[in-house]
C-alpha cells in the first residue's frame, strides 16, 4: 500500500519520545562534522549582493541547548581570502533558551518579527506570544529554531573592516537539513537572508564522522 510522505507533526504531538523530555530531537543532519553551503543576501538599497557561505558544525550539546561551528564567507568584497568566523548557537528548547533573545539588542518585538518570517513558526506563534512558548513540547517538531552568534574571526584580524556584532535567527529543517536564517544587527541592513543546504563533500550520498570528548 502506498504511503503518503506528508509532514503531519505538530508541536503538541508527543509520540514515543522519552516521557518528560520536551527538548528538540537529535538530528543526524545537524551533528558534528556536517557541512552546509549556500548564500547570505547582503543587498542594500544601493545594490543587490549575496555572499557565498559555508558552514561546518563542530560541537553539539543538546542537553545544554548548545551548538557551535564555523562560517566561511567566500566572495567578501575587499577581503583577499574567505573570511572564517566561529559562532556559538542557542537552541530554542524552552528549557535552556526560549524564543525571546533578551540580549544582543533584540527586543521581544524584534524576535517575533524575525521568527514569523519562518513559515514553520506559524504553528507555534500563538503560544509564544501568550507565554513565550514555555510550555511548548518541541521534542517531535521537525524544525529546530536557533540563534547563532559569531564570537570571533578565525583567519582575519578584527581590523578586516567587517563586523560580527549581530546574530542570526535560524530555522533548521530536520527533514532535509536545510537552514534558513536572518541576520539581525540594528546597524546593518535588516533581514539579510541566509540560505544553506546540507552538502556531501561531492559524494553521491551522505557521510557522517564523529568525535567524542573525554
Amino acid at each position, binding site marked *: 500500500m*502506498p*504511503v503518503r*510522505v506528508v509532514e503531519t*507533526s505538530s508541536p503538541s504531538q508527543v*509520540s*514515543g*519520545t522519552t516521557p518528560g523530555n520536551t527538548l528538540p*530531537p*537529535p*538530528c*543526524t543532519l545537524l551533528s*558534528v*562534522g556536517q557541512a552546509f553551503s549556500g548564500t547570505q543576501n547582503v543587498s542594500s538599497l544601493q545594490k543587490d549582493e549575496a555572499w557565498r557561505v559555508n558552514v*561546518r558544525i*563542530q*560541537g553539539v550539546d543538546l542537553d545544554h541547548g548548545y551548538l*557551535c561551528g*564555523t562560517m566561511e564567507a567566500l566572495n567578501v568584497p575587499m577581503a583577499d581570502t574567505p573570511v572564517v568566523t*566561529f559562532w*556559538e548557537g542557542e537552541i530554542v528548547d524552552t528549557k535552556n533558551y526560549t524564543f525571546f533573545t533578551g540580549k544582543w539588542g533584540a527586543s521581544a518585538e524584534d524576535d517575533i518579527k524575525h521568527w514569523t518570517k519562518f513559515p514553520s513558526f506559524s504553528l507555534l506563534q500563538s503560544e509564544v506570544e501568550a507565554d513565550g512558548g514555555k510550555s511548548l513540547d518541541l*521534542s*517531535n517538531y*521537525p524544525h529546530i529554531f536557533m540563534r547563532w552568534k559569531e*564570537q*570571533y574571526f*578565525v583567519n582575519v584580524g578584527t581590523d578586516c573592516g567587517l563586523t560580527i556584532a549581530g546574530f542570526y535567527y535560524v530555522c533548521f529543517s*530536520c*527533514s*532535509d537539513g536545510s537552514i534558513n536564517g536572518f541576520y539581525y544587527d540594528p546597524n546593518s541592513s535588516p533581514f539579510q537572508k541566509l540560505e544553506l543546504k546540507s552538502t*556531501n*563533500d*561531492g*559524494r*553521491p*550520498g*551522505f*557521510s*557522517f*564522522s*564523529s*568525535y*567524542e*570528548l*573525554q
Partner: protein
Amino acid sequence: MPASAASNHPSRPEDLIGRLNSSHTSCEAKLKALRDLKNQIIGNRTKKLAFLKLAAAPSVVGILSSSAAAAAQGSGGDNREFHESVLIQSAAVIGSFACGLDAGVKAVLDAGAFPLLLSLISHLNEKVADACARSLKIIYQSKLAPKYDFLQKKSMEFVLSLLNSDNENVTGLGASIITHSCKTTMEQLTLSEAGVMKRLVGLLGGSLAQRDASLEALAAVIKDNPEVASSFIGPENGRELNVVTELLNDKYPRTRLLACMCLINVKNTSISYLQDRGIKNKLVLILLELLDDIGQVGDEAPFVLSNLITEKEDMQKLAFDANVVEKLCKHLQKVSFQAKCLQGIFIALADLCSKLECCRDRVINLTVINSVAGALAHDSAEVRAAACIFLKNVSRSVKNLSAGHFMNETVIVPLVRLLCDSCASVQIAALGAISNVVVDFAAYKPLFIQCGGVKGLVQLSKSMESSIRVNAVWALRNLAFLVNNRCKEEILLELSISTLASLISDPEASVQEQALALIRNLVDGTMNSIEYLFGEDGLLLHAVGRQLRNTSKPEVLIQGLYTLSNVASGNEHHKVAVMSQLCPQAGDNTETILVKFLQNSSRQLRTAAVWTIINLTLPSNPGASGRLTELRNMGVISRLKDMVNDPCLDVKLRTRMALGQLLMLGDAST
C-alpha cells in the same frame, strides 16, 4: 633562638651515632647524645636522611627497648628516673625521624619501634606515655603506618580504650588510628555502632590537638557513607553537626580546614544535608582563604575544595563566582612548589573546568596553559597525572579547540612524551588529554604527528592493558575526525591495516567501538579516502562486516554500520561492496543483518541503518534499481515501510526520505 650547647657546635653524625652505640658511653652521655640527636634532626630533612643512612633508627629503638626492659625490672630511685628520661628522649627522637618523612617512618617501623611504643603508652609515668603516644600519632600521619581491622573485637576495644583515655595524646592517637585505618563501609558502620562518633564529638571540646584529630577521624568515618552520616545528624537533631559547623569559625586554620572536610563529607552523602546556599558559600569562602595558608593547610586545601566541587556544577559555579579560579591560577604561577601543592591545585582546577565553559575561558585567559608544560614534566607522577587531567577537562571546550589553543609545541611535546611514562596511570591520564586536544579544528593536527604523537598512540594501542588500548584508539579516532588525507595516510602507515583489523575484533567491546569509529572517520571526507577500506584485499572491509554479523553490542554496531554507510556514500564499486557485506552469506539462511538493525531498540542504530539504505538507493546511481530489488528480496523494504511512524523523529524522517527515493526508483509497492 633557643639552642643547646651541643647544637651550637654540632657533633659529627658518625661520632654521635658512635656514642649512642658504644657500651662504654656513660648513661648520662647517652642521654645527652639522644638530646643532641633530637636537636639536630628536628625540622631538618637533610639531617634526618643523613642519620638514617648511618642506621640511627635501629640504634635509638635499641636504646628504647633496653631502657623499657630496665625500667620494667623495677630498679628504683635515680636509676628509674634515668631510664624514664631515656624513654622520653628516645621516643621523641623516633617521632622526629617519622615526622613528615616516609623514609623515617619506614626506618623506625623496620627497627621494631611500633610495638614498643604501643606498650609504653600505658606507662605509669605520664610523661613517658605522653611521649610515646605523641610519636605514634606522628607515625599515623604516614600511609605506611600499620592498619587496624575494626571488624575484629580486639581492635575495636583497643581503639575505644584509647579514645576514653585521660591523656590527650593517647586520645589523639586513637583518632589518628581511625583516620588511617577506617576504609570500608562495614568498618565505618561498626565504629559508628560502637559509639565512636559520640566520643569523637565529645573530644571536639578538648585541646587543639584532640579537636583536630577528632575532626579528621569523624570525616573518615562519615565519608561516602549515608547511613553513618544520617546517624551522625539524627539523634540529637543536628547538635553534633552544629558543633562541627561552629568550628568553621575557629581561629586555627587547620581546625577550619578539617571542619570543612568533615562537613563536606556529610554534605556529599545526601541531597538533604547542608544544601542551603549560605553554608555552601561559606565552605567555598573558607577554603578560598585557606588556599593562601603557607604550609600543610594551604597544601591540603585544594584537595578539600576538589571534594566539595567535583561533579557538582552548582558548587563549581559558586566557586567560580568567588574567584577561586583566579586564586588557584595565581598560586600556580608562583615558583618552587611542593609536589603535593601542585597536584592539589591542578586537581581543583580540573574539577572547576570539568563542566563550566566560563571556568575554561578564565583559565585560558589567565594563560595557565603555559604552566602546565612544566607540570607535565614534573618528577612526581601524581603531579604529571593531575596536570593531564586538568588539560583534559579544560580542552572540553569546542570553542577553544576551534581556536587552536591547545595544539602547540609547549603543550604537545611534553604530553606526547608522557605516552612513554613508566606509570600506567600517567599514561592513561595523558591519553585522556590527548583524546581531547587532537580534536583541534584549527588545522594544526599535523603538528601532533610531527611530534611523534601517532607513533606513541599506535604503540599504546597494542598494550596488554585494555584501559590503555581503548584510550589510545580513542585518541586516534578523534585525531582522524575531519583530518586531511595526508594525516590519514600517516595514521594508517604507522598503525598498519592488519593491526587495525585486529583492533576491530579486540576482546574488549569498548576497543572494538573506538576502532570502528576510527575507520568511520578515515573513510569520511573526500571520496578517495573510502579506498583505505579496500587495501590488502579488503581486509578492513571484511573485518567490519564480520563484526557487524557477530556482535550484538549496539555501541559497536552503530560505529560499524556508520562505517559501511559512509562507504555506501561513495561510487558504484563502493556501494556494491557494502551490499556484499549486508547480504546473507552463502549457506546462511537467516535474515539480513540490516533487518535486525532496523528493528533494534537503539534509535542511533536504526538511524544508521536507514542512512545506509538511503546511500545504497540514491535514484541518480545506475545500480540503485538493482540494489532496491535485492533489498526488497531480503525483506528490508517491507520492514522500512513499517517505520514511517518510528518513535524517533530522526528515524521517521530518514525513513520517509528513503521511501521517497524508492518511489522515484519506481518501486510500485511503495
